[in-house]
């Protein structure tokens, strides 16, 4: 009996090993990734009082996300080859652990809420849809599953979100001061003097992987990639969009100036749900495009 069970065990073990090693090897994964796969992901996510769990996220991911982001989360799903940047940005490679939309400083991992918000909001001017059709729990589960793809989450903690002071009242002085910031830190180099993405550096922009990418055009009615509330705009230029040419300005724009800049950026957008006051002020002031200094 003992010999038989030993034989059985070793047979079983070698079968498991053969399956475990042959499957990921076919997909050409790194040794780090191989380890991730062999250790069943048990990571969780926390969004408010909702806890997401990776195992529950896996089937949702395989049903809805895998087509673009791929089984291994490397952004190489079946559909990815047909997406042509800059018109259609390529799907995110979750293995890199680099994300555009964060409340955390450049070079740090996003919070669970940041990833959750991106899923909920979708990414305008890309093929990433709005996924608010998922339940809150499903979205939280997806966040937990997405995190298991990159070894960064094993080694690092998400950054500490930047401090955002309460939003002040919009005044003509603030809109004007915001325009000065826009000129001073030279947003116009890429985003253009009127915010229509035709700055002198706009045509040569590439992302971290060398793919062409567009600067955001404030005037075409599209939503900024990482959200369109005042706080979203504040976060975008303060933290930067990692993986893209958009740098972090948190070391060079003071909190108060940052709100001024938000109000000025609003005035560049065509009429939307958020900017009636800023546009009115801009018209009354007769603001001219900033000068290229």
């Amino acid at each position, binding site marked *: 009996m003992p010999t038989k069970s030993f034989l059985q065990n070793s047979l079983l073990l070698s079968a498991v090993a053969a399956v475990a090693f042959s499957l990921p090897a076919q997909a050409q994964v790194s040794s780090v990734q191989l380890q991730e796969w062999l250790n069943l992901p048990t990571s969780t996510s926390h969004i408010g009082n909702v806890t997401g769990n990776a195992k529950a996220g896996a089937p949702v991911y395989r049903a809805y996300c895998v087509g673009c982001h791929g089984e291994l989360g490397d952004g190489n799903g079946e559909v990815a080859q047909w997406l042509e940047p800059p018109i259609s940005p390529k799907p995110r490679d979750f293995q890199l652990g680099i994300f555009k939309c964060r409340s955390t400083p450049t070079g740090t991992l996003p919070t669970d809420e940041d990833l959750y918000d991106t899923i909920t909001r979708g990414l305008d001017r890309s093929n990433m849809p709005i996924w608010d059709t998922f339940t809150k729990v499903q979205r939280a589960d997806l966040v937990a599953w997405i995190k298991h793809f990159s070894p960064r989450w094993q080694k690092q903690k998400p950054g500490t979100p930047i401090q955002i002071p309460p939003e002040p009242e919009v005044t003509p002085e603030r809109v004007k001061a915001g325009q000065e910031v826009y000129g001073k830190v030279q947003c116009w180099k890429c985003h253009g003097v009127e915010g229509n993405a035709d700055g002198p550096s706009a045509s040569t922009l590439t992302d971290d992987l060398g793919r062409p990418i567009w600067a955001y055009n404030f005037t075409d009615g599209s939503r900024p990639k990482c959200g369109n509330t005042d706080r979203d705009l504040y976060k975008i230029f303060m933290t930067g969009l*990692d993986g893209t040419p958009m740098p*972090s300005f948190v070391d060079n724009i003071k909190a108060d100036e940052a709100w001024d800049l938000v109000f000025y950026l609003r005035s560049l957008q065509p009429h939307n749900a958020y900017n009636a006051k800023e546009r009115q002020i801009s018209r009354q002031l007769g603001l001219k495009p900033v000068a290229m200094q």
Partner: protein
Amino acid sequence: MKKRQYSKSAIILSTVVIAVFGVLCLNQKVSAAAEGSITGTVKLSGTPSHVRGIDMSKDPYCAKQHDTPIMMENVVVGSGNGLQNVVLYISEGLTGNEATAVPSDQPTFDQKGCQYIPHVVAMDIDQKFQVISTDQTTHNIHPLRNPMTGNIPWNKSQPPGAPPITSSWTAAEMISVKCNIHPWMHGYFAVVKGPFATSDRNGAYTIHGVPAGSYTVTAWQEDLGTQTQKVSVAGGKPASAEFTFAAK
């Protein structure tokens, strides 16, 4: 019981002896570390074909800083075909303190005339470095590292008059750096472990602080790749290693 106590004290005694011996050994290594060095010249054979002038007209400020157009710096050749900006470091053979000691000086990476000065800045793992800008135009500093090495990526702006950025890297890697606003701006953070040197305009270099021993020295050039050589350093004497890269 007595026997056990005896063996206990023997263990304590031997631990103390080993510890003292270890400390002595380490100290010796530290004192020897200041002495030896590896020195030589890096040369280029043939003519570099990929070097061309840079058109800075997209940013008039940048163009104004130069009377004559500057050349790309991916291959810089000086007198006697000396090859500049080659990073030389010890890739094998470091064992003791010299492998983990981190230099306290902070190398500077300046953005001047819309160029990186120096074009390649070498540094140790965990050594602090500074990014400064003397330009009156906005730059963004965007290191494009391999995320799997453990180095953390970032992308920061430096408008005119911005304070220096102080940072460091946690893993050995040749990190390419670019400015998205000025696409011709391209340089390297060469992060290596242990003593290193960067070749000067004549291709000359000296790696200081190498204790006696046998090593593999690696010479890295951004376009021409790497070369290695075995070098033996005798206590206190400079050993030499000459490198020649063939132009592509």
